[in-house]
């Protein structure tokens, strides 16, 4: 065991390696490790946020579905009401049309009947005159009997 100048050499090596570690080893590694720690923390926070957002979106989608169901029920009810209304209106219109057509037909029949009665009335007078002529077997003065015939026509 002898202490000599090797000690100085070793101290120089020691100082040199401390310098290397201080300048080229520890700071960059520490920086990388800190950056990684931060990234991991950020990633965890982001995933937490994502989970939360997913929950919110689930709630929102349930809301939307419920609202849509309500709306569709409402629309269905409205449509039914509307269909009922259209049906009722159509029925009303058909009834009115029916009444109108029937009324017109009745009026026509009435008119025809009146006209036929009128014609019959005319023909009855003529027939009566022709019958009377045949019965009497002689010429009847039409003019003389006109007044009588007129009265008869009135009576019919």
């Amino acid at each position, binding site marked *: 065991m002898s*202490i*000599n*100048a090797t000690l100085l050499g*070793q*101290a120089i*090596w020691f100082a040199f390696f401390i310098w290397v570690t201080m300048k*080229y080893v520890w700071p960059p*590694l520490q920086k990388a490790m800190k950056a*990684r720690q931060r990234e991991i923390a950020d990633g965890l926070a982001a995933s937490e946020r994502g989970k939360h957002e997913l929950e919110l979106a689930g709630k929102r989608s349930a809301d939307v579905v419920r609202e849509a169901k309500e709306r569709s029920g409402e629309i269905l009810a409205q449509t039914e009401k509307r269909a009922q209304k259209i049906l009722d209106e159509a029925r009303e219109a058909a009834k009115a049309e029916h009444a109108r057509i029937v009324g017109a037909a009745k009026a026509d029949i009435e008119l025809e009947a009146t006209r036929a009665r009128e014609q019959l009335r005319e023909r009855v007078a003529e027939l009566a005159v022709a019958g009377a002529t045949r019965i009497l077997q002689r010429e009847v003065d039409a003019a003389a009997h006109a007044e009588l015939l007129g009265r008869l026509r009135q009576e019919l």
Partner: protein
Amino acid sequence: MASGGLTTSEYISHHLTNLRVGEGFWTLHLDTLIVSGALGLLLFGAMAYAARRASSAVPGPWQNFVEMALSLVDSQVRDTFHARSELVTPLAITIFCWVFVMNAMDLIPVDFLPLAASAAGVHNLKVVPTTDPNLTFGMSISVFFMMIWYNLKYKGIGGFLHEVLTVPFGPWFAPVNLLFRVIEDLAKPVSLALRLFGNMYAGEMVFILIALLGVWQLPLALPWALFHILIITLQAFIFMMLSVVYMSMASEHH
């Protein structure tokens, strides 16, 4: 495995002799300087390589390993050293990693590298740099000076002198306090250096003695090596931890 022509004591002292150049104080242990330097360059070069390519993306296996080891050291430092410092964590990292790899040279069977070296014409080679007290004292005295520097940096000259003269017995016993403080502070580097040196020297000695047993070294060398892994790690850790504690004591006010 005593080489032919060597007695047991010659074999042992051959293994414990450094490769040296120079005379007197200006002797240099080339093996200690070269092995520790090469290991340090390799290790810290590889770490700097990992750190240069480090990114916050998924780390590769080497980067992952370095990060794991360094953050382990860093958490120890954080637990012990409370002031803010750019120096203490790199200091702890350097001590732990460097001492660990130098101690780990012990696990290479004792004759491998010396025989290879003697084949290349180098006749003495002490492979484990931490069995050289020059290395352990070189490190511990460096730590001692950093300690003094931190005392002055955090307490100022006045605060430091006040602490030296008044702790622990108060101002009336200033000479006693000063004496205690000098002994205490001198004991730190000495104990730091001798603890590491003693453990590694003894461990290496046991390896050499086992190697002398011929064929019986096989069942003995393995258990000792396995046990030695513990000592290697523990001694590196203790050197690091005590240095951090000393730095922390230097930076804290009483």
